[in-house]
């Protein structure tokens, strides 16, 4: 027994010292004022925003505006497919704000836990995206039914795919795509690379690939308008800045940023 203990003479004190110093850090003692962890009010707060991939450009800009108006608060984004983000939040990811590309994905979150009532802040419509030069001569939605035209759509499980199905149903058309992509950016990439002749993507995504991709409006897009809801999540790590961020998005200034990128006001 004693011999066994003596074997610990080396590593044990070291482990204790490590443990004590680590716990000292966590307790946020009077020393170390530069520590990034929880500090007194007024100092660094982090606001975590989960937002649909299609909001990447606009929300990054809004985040910069927010940080400028609220010194000491930094905004961190997690952009991705709305459905994936919703699952992450439901599974306990620490998000303060959720901005989704469809009411259905927002509902997943509000059903699972408390959140302020979601507000629709923008709407988005679909466009046909074709590669530069439009090799398959696509002019209207009906051209996508031609079996010689390779079409990429978003999978029905994600909002851009649900919208595509709605638009095609409204037009009474049946399109057989060559692929069902997992989000709108992946769909657009297939057009950009010229691997498909056409795709249905959000109007707001086309300018991002300007030069390589041309957007074509079609009348049935009106039947598949996507509402984007935003909500501050209760139980969020930073509830106050969360509310302020939602207010910024809904403010005239926020709307300005969003409409400039091609989103429609609700």
């Amino acid at each position, binding site marked *: *027994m004693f011999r*066994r203990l003596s*074997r610990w003479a080396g*590593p044990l004190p070291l482990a204790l010292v490590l443990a004590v110093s680590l716990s000292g850090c966590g307790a946020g003692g009077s020393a170390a004022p530069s520590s990034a962890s929880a500090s007194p009010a007024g100092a660094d707060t982090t606001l975590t925003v989960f937002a649909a991939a299609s909001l990447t450009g606009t929300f990054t800009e809004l985040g910069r505006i927010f940080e400028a108006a609220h010194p000491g608060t930094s905004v961190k984004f997690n952009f991705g*497919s709305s*459905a*994936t983000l919703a*699952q992450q939040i439901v599974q306990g990811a620490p998000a303060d704000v959720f901005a989704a590309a469809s009411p259905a994905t927002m509902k997943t979150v509000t059903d699972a836990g408390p959140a302020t009532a979601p507000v629709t802040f923008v709407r988005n419509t679909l466009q046909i995206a074709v590669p530069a030069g439009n090799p398959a001569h696509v002019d209207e939605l009906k051209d996508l039914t031609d079996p010689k035209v*390779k079409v*990429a759509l978003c*999978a029905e*499980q*994600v909002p851009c795919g649900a919208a595509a199905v709605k638009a095609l149903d409204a037009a009474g058309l049946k399109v057989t*795509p*060559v*692929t*069902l*992509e*997992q989000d709108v950016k*992946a769909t657009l990439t*297939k057009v950009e*690379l*010229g*691997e*498909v002749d056409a795709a249905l993507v959000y109007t707001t995504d086309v300018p991002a690939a300007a030069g390589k991709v041309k957007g074509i409006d079609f009348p049935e897009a009106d039947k598949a308008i996507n509402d984007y809801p935003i909500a501050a999540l209760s139980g969020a790590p930073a509830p106050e800045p969360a509310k302020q961020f939602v207010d910024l998005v809904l403010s005239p200034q926020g709307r300005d940023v969003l409409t400039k990128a091609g989103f429609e006001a609700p």
Partner: protein
Amino acid sequence: MTPSSAPTGRDGARRGPGSAGGVAGRVPWILVVPAVLGMAFLVLPLAGLLVRAPWPTLLERLGEPQVLEALRLSLVTATLATLVCLLLGVPLAWLLARVAFPGRRLVRALVTVPLVLPPVVGGVALLLVLGRRGLIGQWLDATFGVTLPFTTAGVVVAEAFVAMPFLVISVEGALRAADLRFEEAAATLGASRWIIFRRVTLPLVAPGITAGAVLCWARALGEFGATITFAGNFPGRTQTMPLAVYLALESEPEAAIVLSLVLLAVSVVILASLRARWTEIR
């Protein structure tokens, strides 16, 4: 303390001689504790799948046509990809192991790049070469009217690209470990290089080829990133199990768990049999 540690100690001692050769006695806790934590870290997520699985509806969900389709496609493409890897990878491994040529180290490094490359990057690279506008793809399309993206053949290509290094490394290792004297003896008896390769070398490294092929198959079965990037996702044609899992997670997490369980079961069976194979070689 002593009563609780004693049985573990005996257990450890029992295992010790099997592999390390009998350093019996005290259990070095400083190694055992992190080892157990490490094992828990690797195994717990898998246990999580088992705990959360919707067991009552499991069979019903497995019988859904789309699941069966994805499973069938996965098994078929992984097998075809393995065959492609065997046809191309075994000669490649032989070249790397037996022929000294300038730049061999560089070639060996390049051949294993897909191992560490993010699969999505692999998919993009494949698109740029074999896509409709790609260097070779353009020519394939113009000459034969063949385009690989969005086809089952494209899935096989993506899987083979990612899985081939596993086979090449295994076979090359086996070739390097094999006794050269058998081949030399065959040569002195007048056998040609091809006969030596077929009648002496191949049988000699057969266990290594089998192990490599199984590993290659398992990797192809789990391939996701390169497949979704290069071959796209369409049920029945390019939607393999990993893709089905990813999309199911978007809308129906329970279905994703069921699909994951199937992949997990297949992988464990494969890898367990592989380990048996390895110990057999010893």
